[in-house]
């Protein structure tokens, strides 16, 4: 029997308790059944959830992985990250377009395949990469393009495109991905074997306040990049009034060039979940949510199986390790999928998204620790931070903090990619210099290194003596290496373009500033730049940094400002003064083109 569209939407909403907090799930499921979330379905979802239609429309239009118009049965998303571009994205994209007979963003006439590009999907160490629906294809070559199209048309099963499975749990029955871990340097803390119940068992042997004391003694700073003291965050949350509290794990690893959380989730999920459980005990929460970026959907079933096993082992659920607690400790974790929005890695945007809203950051204060998810006190920590917590409980605060520097305790996982012979994940102690890291990754020829992803800093060889750590070069984990032949302005342009697309558009400086930066940069690259343009870039950057509402806007101008600081000559050599006082930025031919077309005649050029 044919189920009507309305009935399908009603069934899906019903299965999710008609709750707005399941909007990400609901829209994803509606899309997978209907091929998209069309206007009529938007109306139906709004009715089922009893919320204004325009808010559902606003939600669907916010996330890159949701579409309000029909797409192909399969969507091929080519990763257009700067690293992928360095490794042949352009040629591969062109071949796909030729093979499919469509442009980027279009769907084949038979409605089978849509071709799109997508920002960094966390596979830079095995670029170029693509997502075919939820299936990750790595190390793409031009030779494979025809095969991919042909077999997708023949069998319609993207999982059959996986040529060989990756190492470790990438080959797990529930993963079966061709992704590789590329772990280049293991240990001594995070990438080590673990006893699944050890951290939580040790935590339960203490009072929650003592647990926070241990976390503080270890001096652990948030690993997402901002470096806020984790213990202090937990203290605020523990002290905040609330009937309920939440532990949120930020697994929306979206900073281009970062992929270490993907490796932790693949190989150390128990340590992540143990850290979350310890957090739940410490702050008095019974619920935890992992916000997993949409690009990592291929890990979902595996992660859920790990949660299931922890429940079976008494490490999650009602009455965790009952023999070790005087009063029952209940804590459970669920996984929610993101849907393609970098800004959702910002903690308050992540909360908006989980609540079923557009991924707009929230006004602070109040901070999440006071008023977070659904208004309840919440902590948001990065995947790696939770691993640090579990390890601190395993080995003690002293063993953790004796590594690293006086300000930045412990080790850090770095994702290294680009022009180096050993790209992958490195666990290093804080305080390592960029030069030492380049030696480990065999990227000694680097002309420039982007530390901390686009929102971090671009540095040149004169700064390679600097140290990785929150007191010097802070990074959430992204290290991109650029060799001597790379075009600095092209790199900066790709980052500016990224921020322009990923800005939520809420506040003026970020929404408009990124467009102005891109416009000016393109003018310079086009050979139409004037010396004043550098001042213009700096003016816009200053206002974006000072006046933007969240970290995205505050850091979005960093590629421009840091490259201007380290590689100013690369800009200057493209600039010149206009002749006869004319602005070089002004393109007379372009300006009169439309009028000339209407008049159907060419402009007469004067020659004096």
């Amino acid at each position, binding site marked *: 029997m044919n189920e009507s569209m309305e009935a399908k939407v009603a069934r899906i909403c019903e299965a999710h308790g008609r709750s707005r907090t399941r909007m990400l799930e609901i829209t994803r499921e509606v899309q997978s059944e209907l091929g998209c979330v069309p*206007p009529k379905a938007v109306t139906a979802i709004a009715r089922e959830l009893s919320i204004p*239609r*325009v808010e559902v429309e606003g939600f669907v239009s916010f996330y890159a992985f949701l579409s309000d118009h029909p797409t192909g049965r399969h969507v091929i998303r080519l990763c257009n990250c700067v690293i992928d571009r360095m490794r042949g994205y352009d040629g591969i994209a062109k071949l796909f377009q030729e093979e499919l007979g469509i442009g980027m963003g279009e769907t084949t006439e038979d409605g089978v395949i849509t071709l799109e590009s997508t920002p960094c999907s966390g596979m830079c160490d095995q670029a170029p990469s693509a997502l075919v629906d939820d299936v990750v294809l790595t190390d793409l070559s031009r030779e494979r393009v025809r095969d991919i199209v042909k077999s997708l048309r023949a069998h319609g099963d993207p999982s059959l495109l996986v040529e060989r499975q990756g190492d470790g749990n990438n080959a797990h029955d529930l993963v079966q991905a061709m992704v590789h871990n590329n772990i280049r340097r293991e240990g001594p803390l995070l990438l080590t074997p673990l006893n699944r119940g050890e951290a939580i068992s040790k935590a339960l042997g203490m009072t929650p306040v003592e647990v926070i004391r241990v976390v503080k003694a270890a001096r652990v700073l948030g690993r997402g990049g901002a470096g806020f003291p984790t213990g202090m965050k937990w203290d605020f949350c523990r002290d905040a009034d609330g009937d309920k509290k939440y532990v949120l794990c930020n697994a929306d690893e979206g900073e281009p060039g970062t992929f270490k959380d993907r490796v932790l989730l693949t190989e150390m999920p128990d340590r992540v979940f143990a850290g979350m459980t310890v957090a739940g005990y410490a702050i008095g929460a019974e619920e935890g949510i992992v916000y997993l970026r949409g690009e990592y959907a291929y890990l979902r079933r595996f992660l859920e199986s790990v949660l299931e096993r922890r429940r079976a082992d008494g490490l999650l659920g009602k009455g965790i390790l009952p023999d070790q607690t005087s009063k029952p400790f209940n804590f459970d974790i669920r996984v929610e999928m993101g849907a393609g929005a970098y800004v959702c890695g910002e903690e308050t945007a992540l909360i908006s998204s989980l609540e079923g809203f557009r991924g707009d950051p929230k006004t602070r204060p109040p901070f999440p620790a006071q008023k977070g998810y659904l208004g309840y006190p919440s902590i948001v920590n990065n995947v790696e931070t939770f691993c640090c917590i579990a390890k601190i409980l395993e080995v003690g605060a002293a063993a953790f903090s004796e590594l690293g520097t006086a300000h930045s305790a412990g080790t850090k996982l770095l994702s290294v990619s680009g022009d180096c012979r050993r790209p992958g994940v490195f666990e290093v102690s804080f305080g390592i210099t960029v030069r030492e890291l380049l030696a480990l990754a065999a990227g000694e020829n680097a002309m420039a290194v982007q530390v901390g992803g686009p929102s971090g800093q671009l540095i040149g060889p004169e700064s390679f003596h600097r140290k990785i750590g929150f007191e010097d070069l802070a990074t959430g984990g992204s290290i991109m290496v650029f060799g001597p032949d790379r075009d600095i302005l092209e790199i900066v342009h790709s980052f500016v373009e990224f921020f*322009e*697309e990923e800005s939520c558009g*809420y506040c003026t400086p970020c*929404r408009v500033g990124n467009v102005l930066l891109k416009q000016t940069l393109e003018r310079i690259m086009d050979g139409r730049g004037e010396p004043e343009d550098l001042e213009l870039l700096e003016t*816009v950057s200053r206002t974006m940094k*000072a006046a933007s509402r969240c970290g995205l806007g505050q850091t979005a101008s960093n590629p421009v400002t840091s490259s201007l600081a380290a590689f100013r000559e690369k800009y200057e050599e493209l600039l010149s003064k206009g002749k006869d006082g004319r602005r070089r*930025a002004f393109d007379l031919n372009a300006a009169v083109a439309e009028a000339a077309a209407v008049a159907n005649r060419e402009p007469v050029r004067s020659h004096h």
Partner: protein
Amino acid sequence: MSDKIRFSIDGVRMKAHPGQTIMEAADEAGIYIPRLCHMPGLSPHGSCRVCTVMVNGRPASACTQPVADGMMVESDTPALLEHRRVLIEMLFVEGNHYCMFCERSGNCELQGLAYRFGIAAPRFTYIFPKRDLDASHPHVFFDRNRCITCARCVRASQELDGKHVFGFVGRSFHKRLAFNSEGPLADTDLEVTDQALDACPVGALLRKGEGYKVPIGQRLYDHEPIGSEIEARKDAT
């Protein structure tokens, strides 16, 4: 509530009630902090960023930041005035604003701010986006060219009219005002008496049949710059 909180703006000592924002306290004291998305009676939004001030050395939006004891606020500094100028210019080049024949001219807060800041022309290149308009409603006209996505109509419709006529769709530069219907504005429950229409600071949402009703010379900002009405409170005390 007691007048317990003591803080300062540009070195001027002030008192405030707990729970007040910097902007509310400044308004009461007759200190004008420029703003666009803020409107008394609506929940703060913090999106235009024109009211950015320094709070104990860090930037914050005055319309959202609650006052706290001992807080030192800077507002009238060269750096902040420059940020505001840049933000206003950004709003001009982002849309298509034709002040010379806009019905809101003289009563427009964006234009009023530009005059107050002495902006004759923006230093940035106009973006000239292609934007549409909606004239479907019998009594209301919406021109997206002039919309600055301040969300005042969105909030006023919810908080004052008890409706939900407006919202936002899209993101980044493509974020735009949308209506609570599958179709055009006429398909919503917007009425000509809705306060949401009075909330628009620019010429984006207009009542039909009222254009140029107020003669030049009698418009809001014809004689005194925007903000004077707040600064007058200081002179009165």
